[in-house]
């Protein structure tokens, strides 16, 4: 549902850049999305196609770079990899993991004409 909001945020950054960098068409957009950011790549592309219609980014392809989830387990006092929010610690099986990475949502780069 909020992929629509995020797609509009992406388009807005692109349009700002188009004004500053003088380009008239965007072919590809690289996004860095954390695995814990609750963003569905397919929904994102669908929503982006909808919001980008009639803009410099109409028809642009989204390339999504998935970033790994990570956290700090208070039980083990160590950094661990996290596959989903509220998952047990892969080392001790406990539920004292604070998510420290994997919720990023960034526009990294554009390929423009």
């Amino acid at each position: 549902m909020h992929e629509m909001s995020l797609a509009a945020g992406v388009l807005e950054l692109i349009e700002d850049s188009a004004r500053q960098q003088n380009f008239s068409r965007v072919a590809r957009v690289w996004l860095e999305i954390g695995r814990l950011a609750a963003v569905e790549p397919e929904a994102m592309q669908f929503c982006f196609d909808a919001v980008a219609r009639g803009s410099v980014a109409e028809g642009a392809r989204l390339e999504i770079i998935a970033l790994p989830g990570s956290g700090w387990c208070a039980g083990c006092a160590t950094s661990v990899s996290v596959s989903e929010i509220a998952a047990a610690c892969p080392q001790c099986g406990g539920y004292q993991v604070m998510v420290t990475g994997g919720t990023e949502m960034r526009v990294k780069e554009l390929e423009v004409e």
Partner: protein
Amino acid sequence: MCISCGCGNDEATVDGAVAHQDPAQVHTHADGTTHSHAHDPLHAHGHEHGHELASAPGATRRVRIEQDILAKNNAYAADNRQRLAERGIFALNLVSSPGSGKTALLCKTIALLGGQAVAVIEGDQQTSRDAERIRATGAPAVQINTGRGCHLDAHMVGQAMQTLGLREDSLLMIENVGNLVCPAAFDLGEAHKVVILSVTEGEDKPVKYPDMFRAASLMLLNKIDLLPHLDFDVDAAVAFARRVNPQIKVIRVSAASGVGLDAWLEFLREGLARAAAAKQEMLDSRKRIGARPEAQTQRPLP
């Protein structure tokens, strides 16, 4: 289309007035092109950009952006946070599913706080019913209608703050659209998100909708007067919430019977005292450094 949420905000209104449009920001360039910008705290530029065409058509190149998708919303939120800090206002963003009892809890809280100044921003897709319920308690309230939108954003809240005309050292309660998913990602400039879970819902909601429980600092477990009639495991609900967010505070309350509200009021009074103290400290430090008057009116850009 909403610049920050994209969810049909042509319809978003603050107390019935259309949000997200400011005729002063519509302007015409020398080449006759007319367009509009939202006021944008990220780029307080003077519109010196032109409308030249891209140089070599057909030639591709890479442009690095490296910006957070929510950068615009976050900049508006930082702006709101600064305005609140300068006035010593303690602001909370109340989030939950529809029907958890947010508005009833707010009405009761306002009554119990007595003389404390409280203002409320109400977010719903349609109607001003919630704002009317708040105004009936005597507290000022504005209604944001998000239209098709599923959450409040920081720009809407900034406009609502202006409409409300907030008092110094007051409490600002922002009741978000009833939705356990989308509001989690949108910072409004609040001190804390407070998630309300009622015992008539499932105790496993924190693990089914983890983003919101991870974003919140406090969970209010509401309607606990109904526990004798329900098969709801309070300890399991708290354990699920801590699984998502080991640091979340929990207060068990009933807006209907008043049980547990002392602890909630204590949380609010502590927040108010902290906000007032932080404002005073800011004023004192400005006096010490002998800040020029114009320096005081300029907010630092994020």
